[in-house]
């Protein structure tokens, strides 16, 4: 009996000792460590997107076929390229807008939601043209980043500093209350300024830009020409606020990318209007006393942060004729 008890005691002691040999399973990690680079895209990813986009553009440019723009180019960018191919097909037609393949800056979003944007600024292709600001949009996790538009920088303009890949730029709504006034209000005022002309009181609310200066100059010229022919010139400006995208800048401001539609109607009395030969491929119908031009523009407006002593200003703009009609 005593031997049995002794053996049992030894066995229990041994088991207890052995149980204590192995450390307990570590406690789970309950919080994720912070990411070193929290932007939606890192440099290799954005580079791949840009390269694939430019490759797709190059292939479509060589073929002059906008149908090849399917994966990386879409929206207004595809529309504009299709127009440019149409113009290029004509005799002595203009070549499509050249987009340099080297970038001097890439701005990525830090958003957790969609749509997200990617912006890059190309190098200056030549002394005659300014760098091009390119806008990509990703609509959902399943969708590719697509080039949706571009705009040449306004001469003398400077793009603001943007957050890097450690955080990425904030993706803001047009109605965000983090900016006062909101991007929506600023763009609405700017569209109104374009309608009213350079004499508008709103002109004092914006920095100077050559985009509206050229628009006003063309309006004045066409208005005088129509009046000389007892005709009339009218135009309408519409800002696509729904299709706008806002990225936060490093100074607490924002870059706003807004498509604009400008429709101008030129009418003369007892005469027939004519258009330049280079616009003929876009003409629908047969011109008589009225011609209507439709432009699809994109502007990039910088809204300064609260501590920046500057006015909102257009830093890049593209003005592209997409249709000419006889009514």
């Amino acid at each position: 009996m005593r031997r049995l008890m002794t053996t049992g005691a030894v066995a229990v002691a041994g088991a207890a000792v052995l149980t204590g040999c192995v450390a307990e399973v570590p406690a789970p990690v309950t919080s994720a460590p912070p990411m070193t680079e929290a932007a939606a895209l890192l440099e290799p990813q954005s580079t791949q997107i840009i390269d694939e986009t430019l490759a797709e553009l190059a292939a479509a440019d060589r073929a002059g076929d906008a149908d090849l723009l399917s994966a990386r180019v879409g929206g207004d960018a595809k529309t504009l390229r299709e127009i440019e191919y149409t113009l290029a097909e004509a005799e002595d037609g203009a070549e499509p807008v050249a987009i340099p393949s080297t970038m001097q800056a890439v701005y990525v979003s830090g958003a957790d939601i969609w749509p997200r944007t990617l912006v890059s600024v190309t190098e200056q292709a030549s002394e005659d043209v300014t760098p091009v600001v390119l806008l990509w949009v990703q609509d959902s996790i399943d969708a590719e980043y697509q080039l949706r538009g571009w705009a040449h920088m306004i001469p003398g303009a400077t793009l603001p500093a943007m957050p890097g890949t450690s955080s990425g730029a904030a993706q803001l709504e047009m109605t965000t209350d983090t900016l006062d006034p909101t991007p929506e209000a600023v763009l609405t005022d700017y569209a109104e300024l374009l309608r009213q002309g350079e004499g508008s009181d709103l002109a004092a609310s914006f920095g100077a830009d050559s985009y509206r200066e050229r628009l006003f100059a063309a309006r004045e010229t066409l208005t005088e020409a129509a009046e000389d022919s007892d005709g009339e010139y009218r135009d309408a400006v519409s800002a696509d606020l729904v299709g706008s995208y806002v990225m936060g800048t490093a100074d607490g401001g924002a870059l706003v990318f807004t498509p604009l539609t400008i429709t101008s109607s030129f009418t003369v009395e007892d005469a027939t209007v004519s258009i330049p030969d280079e616009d003929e491929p876009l003409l629908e119908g047969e011109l008589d006393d009225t011609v209507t031009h439709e432009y699809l523009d994109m502007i990039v407006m910088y809204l300064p942060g609260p501590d920046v002593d500057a006015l909102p200003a257009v830093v890049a703009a593209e003005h592209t004729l997409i249709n000419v009609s006889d009514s």
Partner: protein
Amino acid sequence: MSLRTTALVAGVIGVLLLAAGLIAESQRPPRDVTASASVDTAVVVYEAEMIAFAGDSRIGVSGDGVIVAVTARPVDAEAWLAEHSAARVSGLPSWESLSTEALDPVAPSTSPSPSPSTSASASPEPEEEPSPSASPSAGAEEAAAADAVDILAATSQDHWRADWRGEGRLSIKASDVPPGETLVIVSEDGSPLTDTDLALTRDVDDGWITPLIWWGAFLTAVGVVALVLRFIDLRPAQARGEEWMAKRQRAGDDEADRSPGTRRSRRAKGEHLPDASLEDEPPSPTAPSPTAPADDHPGEERP
């Protein structure tokens, strides 16, 4: 308690310690273990918390065909997983197993259909003998081809960051995954993966086993010696030793008497012994001569 009894008790304890040490040695748990879990989905997910938990351990996934692992921001991975069935590795309940959790798609997949598109144009003349149905074998092949769609390539891959590829098995060091990112492992052709594992190195508190064996062996030896001595009568030898010691003591006392010219006897008689000095050296201070009191050596004759 006598010395012998104490040694015997130590011997018993030594036997117990030695037995425990040897048992522990034979059952010493391995430091390197692999926790695994079976999966049956084409997608396995390790979220950032689990990646951080894994530390420097290796994450493995097995399956048929090409296996691709990619990382993404957690929010992007979550959005992608919302359209795919997946197994999420959620924890380590024991050193041998991983716990997994099934993730079901919460939204219908918007991925493009892998089947070829049909032509919208109608044939101007109907076929004379339209085939009522495709052959079963052809249908099965088409279905298999339809199933074998690249899961990753079916939708945008813009959000994936790092990637690894393997054939049949893919092993990734967890610390190679950028911190904070989610690891998504997929079977490229959509076939289910078979299992996932996590190779771990754990702490085993076995530093006491070897000292325990040595101490047990030492105490056992002490006990054995005590036990052996218990059966041997040492009293005769002890008596001889004591007698030899006493005899030696007496011999030392007689020698002082028989050698009157020795320094010892002269000192005992109080004679002055000259101090040794070296030439050309100042005389050293003289130390007082020691005088032995008469009662220090009660057995000696006084001079």
